[in-house]
Structures are given as C-alpha cells and as structure tokens.
C-alpha cells in the first residue's frame, strides 16, 4: 500500500484492490487463520517511557540487543533512532540529524550488538557501534539540490536496473551465521542482495513478478541459524524461503501479507509473521487482517495472536517485529505511532490445540 502511495491516489485504491481483495471485492482471511489456535497474550502497559517533549511518530523499526536494550526507528518530524533500556526507560538518541536519516524503514541489531538502520528515503544502510558512532555505510544518498529531484516519479516510470551497491527504497536486513548479510531491496527493486561481512557484493536474486523466486515488495527479511533466508514477499502475500546461497527452497502462502517478520533465538527457533492491517485502516481490511502468526521454520503454523485496533494490546499496522526471546515480542506500529512489548503465554493455550513444544 505504501508503495502505491507516492503515486496518483486513485492508483492507490487500485493497488489495494489488486492485491488483497478477492473476486467481488470481498477480502479474504489468510488461509491459516481459521485453523490456527490463539496464543494468549498481554501487552505491557506504557512500557516505553518517553521523556516529556519528545514524541514518537510512526514507529517503523524495532530491535533489541543482547542486553535487552530496545531500539526504535521512527518517522517523527524527522526520522530518528532512540535507545531504551531493558525496562523501557529512555536512554538516548542515536544519529541525531544524520545525513542518512530521511524516511525510517527498518532497524536490526547484529550479533555484535551493532545497530543497523535501513532508510528508504535516502537508500542507505548505516551501521552504528554500541557507542552510537557510524562505522559502516552501504548505498548512497541521491544528490539533492537539483531541480529534477523535486519531481515525483510517475506511476509508469521504468525502474532502473538494480546495481550492486545502489538501493531503491530498501526495507530490511538479516545476517547469516558467517556474518554475510542480506538486504531486502525493496519498493523500487524487487530483489534480495547478499554481501559478505566486509560489505562486498556477492549476488542478488529476484525481479518483480508473481512466479516462485520473483518478488513483489520484499518488505521483511530474516535468517535462521542454518543460514536459510526468509523473505516477506508482501504484495504477493507469501513468505519465500531461500537457502544461504539464495536458492529458493519453499513458498509459504497461508499467513497473509508478511509486513513484518522475526526469528526467535535459542536452540528451537520460530518464525513470527505479521499479516498487518494496511495503513489506510479500511474497515474491510481491518476485518480480515492484523494477526501475527507463530510458525516452525518449515512453515508449519502453530499459533496466532492479536487483532487490529487503536487500543493498547491491539495492533495498528505492525511494521516490524523483534523476538529475540520467543515469548517477548516487540511490535513497531505505524498508524498508532507506538511500539508495544507483548508477552505471549503459550503455556495457557488449550491443551487440545497446543502445537509445537
């Protein structure tokens, strides 16, 4: 939906209708919804302690480090990155007025506790160390100050070919166990690009389309401990699973549109996928989306939780998930301008419907 948004607004309706509404304009639930048991959960009330005079805007990215610190990447009046302590206490801002901060999209923390911000306004990936200093950049912000830069692209403008080190509205990042990383790129390019730990381009796969291996808005990406790469192919409403060399292994298409994904830590990893309610809050979509699925890495759906809404504990267009701990989920939400800490209680699931371990 967001992709449509920079375009003629009537086209936005078309994009929504084309991707999510079935025949007769009636949207359908994700296929797994009816058969998936609910996981009891609660939201921690007012977890994030925001200082007076400081405001979150749309929260696009959320991530935790190994100490439990939480990072929020938000579109306020300017795009900003905030760090909170484990208990939700505000710690600091990182990257104040950074040249690469224009339109927040994703934030992730790597195994060294370095913080990576993906900005879809400047097309840049920026790595901060724990001191908050920039230690690595990938991509390049387009020059500004030229008159043409102010002209909004037209709907049918051709997308230039993807280049190894130039992104077009990238969305997310993930690492394999060797430290190679994968960029979901993105709204403009329909590909996943792989780099080694030094930032050297290795390869990229994907082009715009519906066929297996093709992508239509790769919006979230996660990798498991074996190096498998899970790509949230949002506008195709499917998760595509690739091996570490980006060969397609499996397509999972029963959990709706994967706006946000995360893979939990620990020896038994799970994949969480948010079938988020679109950001226009159309009541027809509100009625059929907004839940988050818990899955085995092979795609077996074992539980779901959440529903769309503006109240605490409801979800308002979840745009990012963190699940370092399996039953402690952080959500970043666009339309309610908030992040939430969610505690899952799988032990309270009805015995008959409980799946997994």
């Amino acid at each position, binding site marked *: 939906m967001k992709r449509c948004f*920079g375009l*003629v*607004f009537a086209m936005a309706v078309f994009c929504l209708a084309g991707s999510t509404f079935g025949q007769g304009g009636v949207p359908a639930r994700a296929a797994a919804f009816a058969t998936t048991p609910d996981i009891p959960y609660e939201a921690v009330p007012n977890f994030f302690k925001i200082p007076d005079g400081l405001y979150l805007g749309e929260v696009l990215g959320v991530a935790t480090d190994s100490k439990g610190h939480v990072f929020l990447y938000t579109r*306020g009046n300017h795009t900003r990155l905030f760090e909170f302590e484990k208990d939700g206490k505000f710690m600091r801002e990182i990257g104040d007025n950074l040249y690469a901060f224009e339109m927040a999209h994703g934030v992730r923390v790597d195994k060294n506790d370095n913080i990576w911000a993906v900005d*879809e306004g400047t097309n840049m990936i920026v790595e901060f160390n724990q001191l908050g200093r920039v230690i690595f950049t990938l991509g390049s912000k387009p020059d500004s100050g030229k008159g*043409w830069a102010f002209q909004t692209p037209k709907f049918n403008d051709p997308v230039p070919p993807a280049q190894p080190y130039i992104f077009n*509205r990238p969305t997310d990042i993930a690492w394999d166990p060797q430290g190679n990383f994968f960029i979901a790129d993105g709204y403009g390019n329909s590909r996943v690009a792989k780099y080694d730990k030094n930032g050297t381009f290795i390869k990229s796969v994907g082009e715009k389309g519906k066929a297996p291996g093709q992508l239509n808005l790769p919006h979230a990406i996660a990798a498991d401990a074996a190096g498998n790469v899970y790509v949230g192919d949002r506008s195709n409403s499917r998760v595509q699973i690739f091996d570490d060399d980006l060969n397609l292994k499996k397509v999972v298409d029963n959990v709706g549109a994967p706006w946000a994904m995360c893979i939990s830590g620990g020896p038994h990893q799970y994949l969480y996928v948010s079938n988020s309610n679109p950001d*226009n809050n159309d009541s027809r979509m509100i009625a059929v989306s907004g839940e988050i699925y818990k899955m085995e890495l092979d795609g077996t759906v074992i539980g779901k939780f959440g529903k769309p809404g503006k109240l605490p504990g409801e979800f308002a267009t979840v745009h990012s998930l963190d699940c370092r701990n399996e039953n402690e989920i952080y959500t970043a939400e666009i339309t309610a301008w908030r992040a939430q800490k969610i505690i899952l209680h799988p032990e309270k699931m009805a015995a008959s419907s409980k799946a997994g371990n």
Partner: protein
Amino acid sequence: MKALLRFTPLALVLFASSVLAQGSAPEIAYDTNSTFLKWPEHIYMGEPAGVAADSKGHIFIYTRTGEENLTTGTSRTFVRGGSKLFEFEANGTYVREIGQDLYGFIRAERLRVDSQDFIWAVDSGSDMLMKFDQQGHIVMTFGRKPEAVDVPAMPPEYEPPPNPGRDPFGGRGVGSGELGDGLNRPSDVAFDSNGNIFIADGHGGTSNYRVIKFDKNGVFVKTWGNKGNGPGQFQWPSAIVIDAKNNLYVADKGNRRIQVFDDDGTFKTEYHNVGFPAAMCITPGAHQYIYVSNSNERTNLDNGEIYKMELDGTVVGRFGKAGKGPKEFGTVNSLDCRSENELTVGELLNWRVQKVTLHPGSGKSGN
C-alpha cells in the same frame, strides 16, 4: 508548500455574500480582550486555527506557525513542520508547548477538548487527528500522514489543473466510499454522550465531503455524505458540534447552511440563516446555544459577524463584524464557548485570539 495554497480558496470566494438573518437578529453588546495571552519571548503565534478550553479553563491553541519545509529523499518529497500546539492558563499565563516536532503537525485546522479533557488536534496538512492526554502524550491517532507529497515539475507559468484529482498535500481519501479513517483535509471533530467520535472530512477543494463515525475505541462505525447540496450532502463540512441529546450540527460551508443529523447520520433538518458557517461551538448547560461565525474570506472584510442561535435554528442575537481592530474579527476559524457569555475566538487573518465577553443583559438575546 506555498504553491499549495493556490488550490484552496478559488471556489470559496464565489460564496461570499450577504445573509438574510443579519437584518433581524438583535445586536448583543460585547467587549473583547485581545492581549490576554502572555506569549513568552521568541514564540510567535501565527494563525490560530484551533482554540479550545478544558474543564479547568486552560486554553489550548493549535496554530500555524514556524516553517514548513520540503526535503527530498529518493526522488520523493517529504513535508515537515508548520504547526504547533500551546497551552495557557485561564488568565493567559503561558504553560507549555505540546507535541514538539510532531510528525502530524503540518497545517493546523481545528482543536477540541473533550469532556474528559483529552485534547484533539485536527490537521488538514497531514490528514490526521491526534488525541493527547493531559500529560501531552499521544493516546490515539486517526488517518495517516502521506509518506510523500506529489510535487509536479513546476515551470514558472505552471498553474494547477482545475481539478487535480488529488489533494496537493497528498491526501489519500477517495470520497464517501472510503470505509475507514483515510481522511482528506479533515476539519473538525465532535463527541456524543456515549463517547462516539465524529469527524468532519473535510475542508477544501478535493476533500471527502463526509462525516465519519467511530466508537470510543476508535473503531470505524460508518460514514455518510458526498459532494452536493441535497440533504446529507456537503460542500465542505467545515465544523461539527453535538448537543446533549446527541444531535449533530454540521456546518456545510459551501452550501451556506447547517445540517442537523441524529447520531446515526439520519438527516433531520437544515438552517440557512447564518451565512457561511466557518466555525461553530455549542454551550454546555441545560439551555444550550450554538455560536456560529459567518467568517469573512481572506480576500475581503465582508460579513464576519457571529450568531447566537437556539438549537432549533432560531437566531437570538449577533455580534461583531469583519475587521482588524479591537472587537472586530478577521476570518474566524475557531470558537470556544464553554461559558455561554465568555467566548474565545481564533482569527486566521489577524493572527489573534480574542476573549469575548457578551452582555446579553438588555434582554434582546433570549435566555
């Protein structure tokens, strides 16, 4: 950003004209105080689009001030800044700013304080409503600010097409059919006794011409209205108030009328006797009145009087006229009447908030 202003006032000018009621309505004696707000040094008000008081008498001003700016990212254009929200004590002492650097503060349109002292800012630039608690924290939002604005290549002779088909601010609403909070230049918000939320959407050339109802939890209930001049149609719903019996009064500015609905959206009646209703408020208490401003356009100093009316549409008095002096009004966009004879009036044209004290003692004005 400046160029966007060209889109708005074109059609509005056509409607400025005289009003039938003004000849017969008695004048209400009144005084004004235009200097009661004590602004700190280095804070400038700009255009106070939204003015409202809470139950303690604190006055909140949502105003167009500061600098809008456009920035370019990936060949897209983002818009930021341009409005601020300030709080004053009842005596005019400055308290604080709320919503510093807020994402949704682009073009202030209206402000209301509900019965529980939550503060609601309506922004017609970001197409959003933002609900604040008394601590100044965001507790709910409606609509979504466009991620980017559509900026055409603009040669010097460029003129916008008469119907661009899209709000230049990038508004995403598509008319009355949009079943959600896809707002397009919303203008006002009001609440019934059950906490249901009604948004007038909206104000301006390519807006949605509708009223939207949400329950108190922000769940969409229904929407009604489209462009036109029949019952239940609108030509820019510009203000909305609700009485104690949950009747809705919607200022239908372009049609120069007030339409009355029940809180399910059923049309009841309409009033044509107050000109060009740009701003409204409703008094509390057992006997409620509506004040409505027949505001002058920015292009002239015509009209500008404020009417006091019974809920049945009977005008019981009027006061004021357009102008720049004391006791005159310049394009009133906001009225607060928490006390029946003590109004707070926000004027766009004069960058001014006046405290108006009415003296209806002559008996000419009912009550």
